[in-house]
């Protein structure tokens, strides 16, 4: 047996940090962009801003306590070096602080577009978008940095984690939107809501397509190469120990199913100028599938990297 030095707390951290960073990044970009979202822009941005920091802090809590001696984690702040974990620690600390401040600007009951916090909120959004992307991407660099782990040792992992984080962030925003949006019979408000939901769904479909592309390239290059990487990637190919969770949960439930449903949903409006009317039940189903897939992706990759090794001694 190979021992798993990084287990469930680390897997959950990678998933939760990606989810939170993705939600805040999406929130910031929605707030900062000029057109598209109409009067529901603020509601979408608030949703992402308020949920984002929670999973990031929860994940950080998990990895700090995974150390066994949590106060030792303070040693991370005594130096900064080129270890991905060191850079990630500082990025994560900055992101938690700024995303919390950003979330706080949405908390006052008077918060709304053009209130007195609008300037601060925009400035914080400008900080949160790049730092959110950095947090999402560093987790992939963290794993990808090691030649001793051929399954991880690829620059493409960072891209996959970034797309998955943004997609999970959008899924979380849609999911929260379904439960917490104000019910209204005003056709203008409903129209705005459907429009913002349409923009989020099209973006998500694009991200899922990107993930499929990266997974395709990953498998293609594993097939085209020989040696360590080829042996390592066998673990997710048919007959491999992780083939079922990878193809079933990550690719099937996490990417293909939501991607196909989203395409079917957005196609009338995207191509034929029709309308976009997803049912709340379907929105919940798609978002949940994406979140399950996001967790399964971290699980499969973290475990696969540790149960495989360079072939030749």
């Amino acid at each position, binding site marked *: 047996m190979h021992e798993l030095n990084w287990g469930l707390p680390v897997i959950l951290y990678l998933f939760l940090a990606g989810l939170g960073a993705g939600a805040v990044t999406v929130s910031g970009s929605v707030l900062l962009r000029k057109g598209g979202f109409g009067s529901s822009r603020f509601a979408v941005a608030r949703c992402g801003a308020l949920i984002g920091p929670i999973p990031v802090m929860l994940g950080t809590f998990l990895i700090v306590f995974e150390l066994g001696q949590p106060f030792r984690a303070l040693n*991370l702040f005594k130096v900064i070096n080129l270890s991905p974990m060191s850079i990630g620690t500082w990025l994560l600390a900055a992101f938690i602080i700024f995303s919390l401040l950003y979330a706080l600007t949405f908390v006052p009951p008077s918060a709304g577009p053009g209130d007195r916090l609008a300037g601060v909120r925009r400035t914080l959004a400008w900080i949160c978008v790049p730092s959110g992307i950095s947090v999402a991407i560093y987790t992939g660099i963290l794993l990808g940095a090691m030649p001793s782990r051929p399954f991880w040792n690829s620059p493409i992992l960072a891209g996959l984690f970034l797309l998955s984080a943004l997609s999970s962030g959008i899924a979380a925003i849609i999911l929260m939107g379904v439960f917490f949006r104000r019910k209204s019979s005003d056709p203008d408000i409903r129209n705005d809501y459907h429009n913002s939901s349409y923009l989020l769904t099209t973006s998500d479909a694009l991200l899922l397509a990107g993930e499929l592309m990266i997974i395709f390239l990953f498998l293609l290059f594993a097939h085209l190469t020989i040696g360590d990487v080829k042996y390592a990637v066998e673990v997710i190919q048919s007959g491999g120990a992780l083939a079922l969770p990878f193809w079933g949960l990550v690719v099937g439930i996490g990417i293909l199913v939501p991607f196909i449903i989203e395409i079917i949903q957005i196609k009338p409006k995207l191509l034929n100028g029709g309308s976009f009317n997803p049912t709340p039940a379907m929105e919940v189903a798609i978002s949940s599938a994406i979140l399950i897939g996001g967790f399964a992706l971290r699980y499969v990759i973290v475990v696969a*990297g540790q149960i495989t090794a360079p072939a030749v001694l």
Partner: protein
Amino acid sequence: MTNTTSISGRRNFLQKIFGGAAVAATAGSVVSYAAASPDTKAKQKQYGMLIDTRKCIGCHSCSVACKAEFDVPLGATRSWVEYIEKGSYPNVSRNFLPRLCNHCRHPQCVDVCPTGATYKRQQDGIVVVDSGVCIGCKYCIQACPYDARFLNPVTGFADKCDFCIHRVSQGLNPSCVNSCVGGARIFGDVSDPNSEISRLIATNPVTVLRPGKGTEPNVYYIGADHSGEHENNRGWYDVRVTTHRRDKDRR
């Protein structure tokens, strides 16, 4: 003088990035660097080990001596001996492969350590772990291509072979070398061309483990069998590797 000589890749990288600024800012130190570097490069001490597996009898004296020397907790090993069994009757062999930290020239564990707890000593090239700084994140354990590291279950920090630093700094041999009944282990300064280890490396066909990983190990082998269980895929002969580590396949 020694601190201007780069050892790890990370420091090289920093020098490449900040080199220009350093030239402008501290011309004096750059001059001394240029003057010192050819000299120090030749004299940079690097302890290493040569293991002649033809003389190894697989008795585990080294593993036991190491356990006793450091009170290594149950289930963990700083030094271990792998058995590689190969072939089908009557064409069979069993070879022994003693393993320990390779004290690499480019240690990946050092590159990934976020706190600087693990570092390569300038004075003798030994890669050490400062348990006062280590946070137990296990990144170095993931990064070592040789699986030489483990999380010490008693202290909770990363641990591994340190070439018996307390012994070699007193001029003694490491405990595993001292206890080897076959005289299979030679310890010494590989940077000194006149040392016994350097002469043996120069005059024998030697190999290192996983040279393709770019780590440039300082533990050399004569007659090592590099066979692994992946060769069973071919179906030509059987290979079985026994690592003698608890719950551990060879990584």
